[in-house]
């Protein structure tokens, strides 16, 4: 993962970040940018605007770097600012093209909606990271199976592999994800993934 390159073993990221270390900022940026963007897109369904919003939120984070004492606080700050900016965006849109009633009924504006989107984002993000850390071949097969819903035989044909190799790689993926995730108390995802790939 890209953000791992920024790890500085001598000082915890949070301490470095508070002191205004740009490498630590980069670490948090790479850690949170993708889920935050995804979260914003769930709220406003506008990819370009989501990018603007999240970028601005990171600038705000940087400008307040001295205020943060934990990673969770950073994460919460980012989610709260992103959600507020999305609400502003929706309100401006509302003036432009929507009726009052439509807005009154709009569940997106409700806090629970945002909180549930955060839960969704967080869970999927952990899964994504576990998958991304699989070895290349293993990951390719896992994704074909998981994302593209290809049958074992189809995968075998496409990659010119034996069906046995495909099965082995899938089993290996599960083991690796499980191993990877167990370290982070994420064994759940291994099981979860297993539901998908075992027919």
């Amino acid at each position, binding site marked *: 993962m890209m953000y791992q390159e920024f790890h500085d073993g001598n000082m915890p990221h949070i301490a470095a970040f508070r002191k205004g270390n740009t490498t630590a900022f980069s670490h948090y940026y790479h850690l949170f940018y993708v889920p935050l963007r995804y979260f914003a897109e769930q709220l406003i369904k506008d990819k370009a605007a989501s990018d603007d919003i999240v970028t601005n939120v990171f600038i705000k984070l940087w*400008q307040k770097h001295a205020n943060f004492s934990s990673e969770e606080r950073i994460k919460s700050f980012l989610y709260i600012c992103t959600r507020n900016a999305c609400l502003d965006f929706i309100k401006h849109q509302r003036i432009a093209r929507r009726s009052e009633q439509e807005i009154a009924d709009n569940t997106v504006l409700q806090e629970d909606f945002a909180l549930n989107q955060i839960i969704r984002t967080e869970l999927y993000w952990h899964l994504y990271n576990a998958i991304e850390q699989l070895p290349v071949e293993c990951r390719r097969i896992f994704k074909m199976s998981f994302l593209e819903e290809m049958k074992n035989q189809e995968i075998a044909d496409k990659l010119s592999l034996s069906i046995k190799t495909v099965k082995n790689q899938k089993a290996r993926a599960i083991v690796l994800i499980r191993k990877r995730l167990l370290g982070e108390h994420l064994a759940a995802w291994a099981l979860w993934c297993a539901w998908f790939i075992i027919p």
Partner: protein
Amino acid sequence: MKKRALHASYQIVELIRKHLDESITPAENSRLEHWLQAKEANRILFRQLAEKEHAGEAISRFKEIAAERAATFERISSQLTTLPSSRTRFFLFRHWSYAAAATVLLCLGAASLFYFNNSSGPTARPKPAVTVVTDIPPGGNKATLTLANGSVITLDSLQSGTLVRQGNAAVIQLGNGQLAYKKDAAARDAPVVYNIIATPRGGQYQLLLPDGSKAWLNAASSLRFPTAFTGGKRKVQLTGEGYFEVAPLYTGKKKTPFIVEIGPGGGQVEVLGTHFNVMAYDDESAVKVTLLTGAVKVSKGLAGARLTPGQQAQLDKAGQLKVQPQADVAAAMAWKNGMFQFHSADLPAVLRQLSRWYDVDVIYKGPVPSREFEGEIERNLTLSQVLRILEKNQVHIKIEGTQMVVMP
């Protein structure tokens, strides 16, 4: 959305992980059950989480966003070391001249170009700007108080203590640019007299009226008010811009109305107890009354409108009264919170605000550049710092004495 609610959501994430892992304890499981039972939306979410389709969609999208991550980071990383560490916010500028294209982000965080990194903070001296010969500091807490007998007292934030007695009130300077009128029991029968507080360009001041109402005056503004509110009405006269937090006042059982009369012949705002902003500068096209809480009645001659919170009444020079149902409250209130805030503002509108706060005149040496500005910036920057931001966005302005000269 509060941090506490978020923390609870992170815990739900953990519980769901453990649930799937089958490592969940009975106590944790009952917390998860409780969450599921609380709302239908929670149950729907829980069901969706394990649906391949949803997870697959999310993962594909994560992949795409991750591919854009580095490019987006490039946009901000070059400016990180020059971004200020204070609460100075970025100034976002959008360029609309390439109309068909999506908005092009030209400048992020430019406000900060003047700062050295980190600890130096907002008081750091700016680097000399290329086109700026002199610099002009931001405005501050400055005002004059004209007493009933015509004598004038200069106010600033340094002194504090009782300045003078006026009618039946003691006039107290509180420091921090605040002036308070306190009822003086000993002088109860003294006649009511009028005082005027006035801010110059580049000044602002805060006033605590004898009824407990508060008024904030922006630059180049004035408020005339009595030293005590007697009779059935509370009347003050405003020029320029002021924000009011009116305290309810009872005469017997009846609430006493508080009336702000605007400029010469600019209409009036009548309230019982509420928070609102009145912008009535002569050089702006319309008087704008923005309501934050409660209710106000805005009227001029026969035209009148009642506002509900979040609405803005706009009274133009021709006497037309319009109500904007979804006002840009944040922009209207920004000045009181130490910010300039612009939403789709043209250059003259931006420069009018700068002109009042930095006490400079604006000269256009050519056609007025047509640009739209979006974003906010602190009012404690020096003028050259602000101009550098505009310069970054192809607006070239020189400071010449007390003039801002906009170059073609």
